[in-house]
């Protein structure tokens, strides 16, 4: 009876473990390859971290560094060389500037919009909201070309503006926040009005603090999507390396004489991925705090 119970339970766990492995193995490969030497990567040996023997790296010397400089342990080399080869801090900075600007402007626009759609009574409100829902159905790729032409005509190609402007109005954000605001009791807004707040004060001083949990959920979606976005930056950033976002930066490691050197490439990918993971872990903690924030009803 008991054994049978365990068998019944274990196949579920087995299935879940397989699913988890499918997700985790690429990460494992990435971390492992960023630490190992080229020979170990190619011969698929050395486990997670490899032997970490001090050696001289030929690609490094080919780039004109002295042999002395190019002799070190593989993990150190991979990260050191990744940073030497491409201005990764610059890319990370660009990623930060772009994602943070996008998110802030999205919030700036989405909060008043969703407040109006959820809590103010005006003619055509339902129609406007149905248009918001309709916009959710338009894929980015369908409007990429007209967008590009518009930006090109405005002379904005190869600027931060080109990376930011198309994403500032997030219909998903408006939709998400509107759904959240629907659950906020009207009395709270009435109380704020009695206290003498104007509609904009209500949005920023009452609705915003109340909506922190929902905003965090939205932040995760928004930041992850735009940090990882390769498609759009690839279109509007044509040559200026100073404007490369992290995914464009990783592309630097493809092609050229040392295209098959995976160590530094994986090291750069680790560097680009870690900020997201850290941000997610921090946000997750706040997320739970936010959800347990009661006292509204």
């Amino acid at each position, binding site marked *: 009876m008991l054994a049978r119970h365990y068998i019944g339970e274990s196949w579920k766990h087995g299935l879940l473990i397989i699913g988890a492995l499918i997700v985790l193995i690429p990460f494992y490969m990435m971390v492992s390859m960023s630490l190992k030497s080229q020979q170990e990567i190619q011969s698929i040996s050395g486990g997670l971290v490899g032997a970490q023997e001090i050696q001289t790296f030929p690609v490094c010397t080919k780039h004109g560094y002295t042999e002395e400089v190019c002799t070190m342990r593989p993990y150190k080399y991979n990260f050191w060389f990744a940073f030497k080869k491409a201005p990764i801090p610059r890319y990370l900075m660009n990623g930060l500037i772009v994602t943070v600007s996008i998110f802030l402007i999205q919030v700036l626009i989405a909060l008043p919009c969703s407040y109006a759609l959820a809590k103010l009574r005006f003619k055509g409100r339902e129609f406007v909201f149905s248009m918001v829902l309709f916009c959710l159905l338009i894929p980015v790729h369908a409007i990429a070309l007209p967008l590009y032409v518009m930006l090109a005509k405005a002379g904005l190609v190869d600027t931060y503006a080109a990376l930011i402007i198309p994403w500032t109005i997030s219909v998903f954000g408006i939709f998400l926040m509107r759904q959240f605001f629907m659950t906020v*009791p009207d*009395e*709270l807004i*009435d*109380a*704020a*009005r*009695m*206290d*003498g*707040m104007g509609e904009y004060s209500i949005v920023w001083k*009452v609705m915003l*603090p*109340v909506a*922190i949990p929902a905003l965090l959920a939205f932040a995760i979606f928004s930041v992850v999507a735009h940090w990882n976005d390769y498609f759009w930056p690839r279109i509007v950033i044509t040559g200026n390396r100073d404007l490369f976002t992290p995914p464009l930066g990783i592309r630097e490691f493809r092609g050229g004489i040392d295209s098959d050197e995976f160590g530094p490439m994986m090291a750069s990918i680790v560097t680009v991925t870690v900020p997201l993971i850290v941000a997610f872990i921090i946000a997750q903690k706040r997320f739970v705090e936010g959800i347990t*924030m*009661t*006292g*509204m*009803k």
Partner: protein
Amino acid sequence: MGTISLNNINKSFGSTKVLKQLSLDIQDGEFLTLVGPSGCGKSTLLKIIAGLEQQNSGDVIIDDKNVNSTRASKRDLAMVFQSYALYPHLTVRKNLETPLKLRDYSFVERLPLIGNFVPSRKEKKKSIDDLVFKTSETLKITELLDRKPGQLSGGQRQRAALGRAMVREPVAFLMDEPLSNLDAALRVHMRSELSELHNSLKTTFIYVTHDQAEALTMSTRMAVMIDGELLQLDTPSEVYNNPSSLRVAEFVGSPKINTFDAEIRSDGFAEFNGIRLEKKFNTNSQKALVAVRPEHLEITKDSNKPAFEAKVSYKENLGSDIFYHVQVDQSDSKIIVRGSPQAGLISNGETIKISPSHSEAMLFEISGERIR
């Protein structure tokens, strides 16, 4: 001062008329209760007074000033809501300070950081602190000032919400069913506290409730509203003992008033269930309704008294009183009679004789108007 007049207020949402030509005068320092079944428009009326809702026509006059186009915050009223509506992200202290800061600080003084450098702010901050402290002392919430609403119990939140209304020292308090989220014992306790508060503040209170017990116990006058109309405005005892229409009589009083079909005889006396009421009424109708409250029906064994027979179908023992739900023999109507526990036990299914109090019986037209 806190007199409020409403003149011919009309309000409709879409095609539904919520308020119909409603007029009401509220005196200074009065505890006025707006009472009525849910959906009768009493909360809408309160919102119109507050300025949170705009009437379709009619005037709201506060202290002889027409405030139709005055914003809610400029009307100098304070409101307490059913769900308390405290700002969940602010401490109780900040919740109490908010209306004062918004009223007293200038735009520059309200700015974060920069505001700190405006010299006049310091003085205002001190007077705000004093007011908040004074209010919290009155309501006994001083030790809760640094907590957030989420950490408070229902009763404490209720006090904090009251505090937020009180700090402004408004011309009138508007309360929208403030006690209905509390448990029964606390509700009864808060009733007396609110009455005391009203006595000490001597400010006008306008109190919306669907609970007639609250209306009867607390108010100086109560306004009974049904279906968007003001049916009666009078002291609680007058409304209870002398209702102007059958709808008022049926709404006020628990258990509900009993009604009987009656015939008006040619000599002007009403007769129901074979009993002639010893009271002359002024009407031309042939048929009418007699209404008698449960406490004005007496269970009697005296065969000389005019009485009708009925069978007990259900007993409700409240300790101090027993309410008998009885089936009247000749008709299929059910009525409720109050009996005292001392009168001895009557078991279900037993037939009893019921004699109405002639002086307390009220007569209504079939349409509901009172016949006096």
